């Protein structure tokens, strides 16, 4: 079955695959996670706001993003970001935006909608008495959120936030549709096509993703037991 396979292609290219492709994928995952959680938390606070217009804007944004496929969102921002950039700097022509920045903006804005829903249930899991107690102590909204609600909400939601980050790590592979972003799958498929070794390369890619995602989710499960707040 494997007689006419040539796994030599992996030996020749694995260092390049990891130092270029996987480095890009991981950097994008981590930066998009940080940006996505920050923006997502802001969205969650907006959704739970007493002000109707603020909560309407956040709710519409989240529902819109959650009803379209990531591939379509990737196309949207790939074409839209140069125009927005031109609008911001006041240029008359669309400006060139690097592959990394374009992908980063896409993933922050897309994943924020999913992180928002996680943070919303995290904030709602904090008993209302604590919010009242915060206000009774004379705190304002930001002090109460920053010192009382959000630290506990984060701690409760760490396992789910990390699980979503593993989903994000796998989602980064979809930038393959742009063809010009050097993530792990794109780089691997370029080498595979150059050397005519699609079968060996895609099996290798699958194994790498499996080992990394499985390892990470096992770590998350262990962490889950350690960070749980004992009540």
């Amino acid at each position, binding site marked *: 079955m494997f007689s006419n396979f040539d796994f030599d292609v992996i030996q020749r290219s694995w260092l390049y695959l990891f130092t270029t492709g996987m480095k890009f994928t991981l950097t994008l995952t981590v930066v998009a996670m940080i940006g996505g959680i920050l923006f997502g938390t802001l969205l969650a606070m907006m959704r739970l706001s007493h002000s109707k217009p603020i909560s309407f804007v956040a709710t519409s944004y989240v529902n*819109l993003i959650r009803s379209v496929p990531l591939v379509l969102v990737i196309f949207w921002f790939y074409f839209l970001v140069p125009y927005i950039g031109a609008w911001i700097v006041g240029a008359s022509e669309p400006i060139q935006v690097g592959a990394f920045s374009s992908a980063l903006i896409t993933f922050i804005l897309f994943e924020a909608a999913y992180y928002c829903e996680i943070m919303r249930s995290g904030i709602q899991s904090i008993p209302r008495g604590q919010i009242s107690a915060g206000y009774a102590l004379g705190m304002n909204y930001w002090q109460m959120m920053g010192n009382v609600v959000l630290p506990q909400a984060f701690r409760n939601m760490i396992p789910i936030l990390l699980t979503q980050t593993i*989903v994000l790590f796998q989602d980064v592979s979809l930038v*393959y549709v742009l063809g010009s972003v050097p993530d792990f799958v794109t780089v691997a498929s370029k080498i595979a096509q150059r050397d005519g070794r699609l079968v060996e390369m895609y099996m290798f890619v699958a194994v790498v993703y499996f080992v990394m995602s499985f390892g990470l989710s096992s770590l998350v499960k262990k962490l889950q037991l350690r960070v749980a707040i004992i009540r």
Partner: protein
Amino acid sequence: MHYNWNWGIFWQESPDGVSTYLDTLLAGLKWTLALSAGAWIMALVIGTVIGTIRTMPNKWAVRVANGYVELFRNIPLIVQMFLWYFVMPEIVPASIGGWLKSLPNASFITAFLALGFFTSSRIAVQVSAGINALPRGQKLAGTALGLTLPQTYRYVLLPMSFRIIVPALTNEFAAIIKNSSVALTIGLVELTAATYSMREFTFQTFESLTGATVIYVIISGIALLLARWLEKVIAIPGFIAAGSTNTGGH
């Protein structure tokens, strides 16, 4: 900043000479719906079987079912599509491989298999969660009444757990429609791919993308309304949906 808007583009004739660009998008939508519906049925059947096995007393069966779930959950869908499309025909015997490659709708069949197996692992997780959410006494009561284990599952546990996990399953159904867009990487011209080709022919980038976005929002709106109605009809008083608190994933 220059961009020439032309919303009339949807009613203009597309390069095939007979239909409009709107028809191009609707033809893509047909593939999206066919792929999602087909893969959904496959995923529901396999997911129910695997999800049930994960709650059985036999340790080895549970391990195999858990392995199945981990395998399909930890590889990105796009890589799974590549595995079915490029790798599978090469590692099966040459005669079968050649037959697979010569099928008329190879990319549809491949995408159907990839999406079906991928979603089945996610449904399996929900089905086991539903069964585990039931009070332990239900299984004991079933067997105490003289039902065999398969009968207990068939008449007591599965009907109850399916009614509990309806919200989680509707989430998965919304997800399968969105995930079907990954099939464009192996050459299936579903809605997102149709949008992209419309853009390449017309250069009306934002009109094409808006058209597809509106269609996706309408489908998920319809799915959401159906789901709300189904939840109302089917919900069991006193049993809060186990899956509805699970907000991760897409």
